[in-house]
């Protein structure tokens, strides 16, 4: 039975600390931003947005929304547009797999993604001397001129499978496959698991009344859910929000 890995991010628990962003960068060998980089040319497969409800004083509310690749369903906006099939939906796991080795760098997928979850390598990767020792050997480094995005820590999926195979098991142990962002999150705001498995915790939370998905009306069928008890936060799911909003990146 093929898996459908997904996430639920509890926005009422996210404090905007940004640990998930740092862990993601470390896990995925994201190079340090060059001096000329801007917030719009950075490489942040996990990006936390700060959103307010536009009011002042005691009525002011803020929420931090970590945005990553939504791992859209079978009809992803990006897979259908890539001219050389450098991105595919993996049938076994439901993960939207980006292949930087095949990427031409045309950036059409970046235009297609409504969540702005795709990032381009505008520079050649360069690490200060000595820092290359901190690289994760399980994840390939990307050259400049290719697109990349969150792939649900696919290297950790591989490690978990290898571990299971070494122990003679066919199925991997869910406890072995944990994305870096979840591991780093101090408040436990991120829940990860197999949405195809009804017994998995993530399944029931994703289908709870407080769960929602961003821009669901576009029909992208994301596998990353959000959860909040606050009505104004839930309203942020769709574009047509009545409240004025401002946003900043963490």
């Amino acid at each position, binding site marked *: 039975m093929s898996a459908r890995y997904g996430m639920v991010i509890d926005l009422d628990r996210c404090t905007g600390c940004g640990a998930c962003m740092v862990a993601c960068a470390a896990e995925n060998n994201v190079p340090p931003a060059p001096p000329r980089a801007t917030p719009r040319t950075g490489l942040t497969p996990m990006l936390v947005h700060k959103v307010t409800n536009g009011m002042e004083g005691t009525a002011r509310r803020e929420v931090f929304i970590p945005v990553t690749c939504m791992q859209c369903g079978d009809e992803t906006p990006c897979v259908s547009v890539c001219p050389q099939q450098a991105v595919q939906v993996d049938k076994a796991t439901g993960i939207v797999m980006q292949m930087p080795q095949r990427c031409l760098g045309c950036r059409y997928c970046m235009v297609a993604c409504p969540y702005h979850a795709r990032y381009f390598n505008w520079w050649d990767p360069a690490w200060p001397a000595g820092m290359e020792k901190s690289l994760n050997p399980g994840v390939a480094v990307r050259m400049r001129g290719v697109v990349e995005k969150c792939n649900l820590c696919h290297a950790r999926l591989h490690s978990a499978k290898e571990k299971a195979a070494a122990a003679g098991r066919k199925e991997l142990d869910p406890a072995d496959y944990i994305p870096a962002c979840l591991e780093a999150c101090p408040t436990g705001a991120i829940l990860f698991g197999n949405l195809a498995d009804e017994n998995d915790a993530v399944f029931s939370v994703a289908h709870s009344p407080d769960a929602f998905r961003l821009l669901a009306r576009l029909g992208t069928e994301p596998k990353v859910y959000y959860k909040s008890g606050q009505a104004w936060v839930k309203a942020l799911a769709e574009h*047509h929000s009545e409240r004025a909003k401002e946003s900043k990146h963490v």
Partner: protein
Amino acid sequence: MSELLLIDRRWIARGVERSSTMRFLLWLVPWVALLALGIYAAGLCLYYGLNQTNMDNRFAFGMWIFLDLAIIAMGAGAFFTGFLVYILKQEDLKPILNSAVVVGLVCYSGAVAVLMVDVGQPLRAWFTFWYPNTHSMLTEVTFCISCYLLVLILEYIPVLLRNRQLRKVPSFLIFEHQLHKLVPVLAAVGAFLSFFHQGSLGGLYGVLRGRPFVYRQGFAIWPSTFFLFILSAIAVGPSFLILVTAAAERVTGRHLVKPGVFRKLGLISGVLLAMYVAVKAVDTLVWLNITSPSLGFGPRDYYSYWPISSTFLFAVTVPLGLFPALLLIMPITAGKRGWLLFGATLACAGVLLNRFVFTVQTLALPTLAFDDFLQYSPSWQEVATFGGVIAYGVIVYSLSYRYLPLFDPPKGADPNVSVD
């Protein structure tokens, strides 16, 4: 020095008037300088990476993609004139055919050159051919434009081989003769390819479910933008051809084609432009009332940002759409050269604005509830590359005009060789 002038004279057809070598070189100097600057800018981007541009993760497509779409729409005059002459037998447009081929060649080769700089890994361009994704409009564009560039080169070769010195090589002349006989086949193939890639460039945007500003319903796999782009391209192609030829007449100080040719091209352009405006109006109504709301987006989401307001949409359809269409159709204006050129210019401006709206405005508009409306302006490297492409076009056209029979028809009838 006089040796050089003599050699230059030998390459120019006998009996035609061309400006002196000195004057021609002086004309070329600023364009060569612009081209050199463009090559330098492109070189910087190829060497240092695309961080040399002002494109970023939100504006993944910038001025170059706008340039590509615009230039290919303008270059539609090449295939469309060929279609009119060889398939629809409009013989009175024949004198402008060679010029149209040069314009097409310059537009498409310039677009491909810019694309090679625009992508992050140009050496991987062959991947699209090796692992084609038949669902992607960009695959379709790549295949069609590559084939069509080849067709344009093949259509240009006979013009090139009729150069006074080149035709002295017997094998060149015979090959030109044989290739010229097959040009109708190439024109038909070119029309077929152009129909698809002009449409697919519109389809690039029409299929984007993640961008409700451009997403459209359509017919089978083709969104309405597919057909709208074809229509606007064949509407603007003849107008652009008029402008280029008129510019050539102004620069060379000679009458190059009969006024009737301009009027006919203008009429065709005007009629197609009027049709385009009508279809676009219907499409806009469907989009704003049905398609867009179903995705959770309404007109307020598109048109409430300054300077983008509904004036852009109005501009494309009325002052840069219906108005020039009328100018080009009505004999009272189309008969006068000044009004004809004005109408053609407005038509081109309208299509340019439309392409800008699709490439740049789409990316500026927010999608997520907490997105901002964004700004983008190109870096000097992007502008210089743009300038380099224009310079390249002017240089190739100038050289073609000076040394090749662009406008001179063969003085006798076509040789009816009895042996064939």
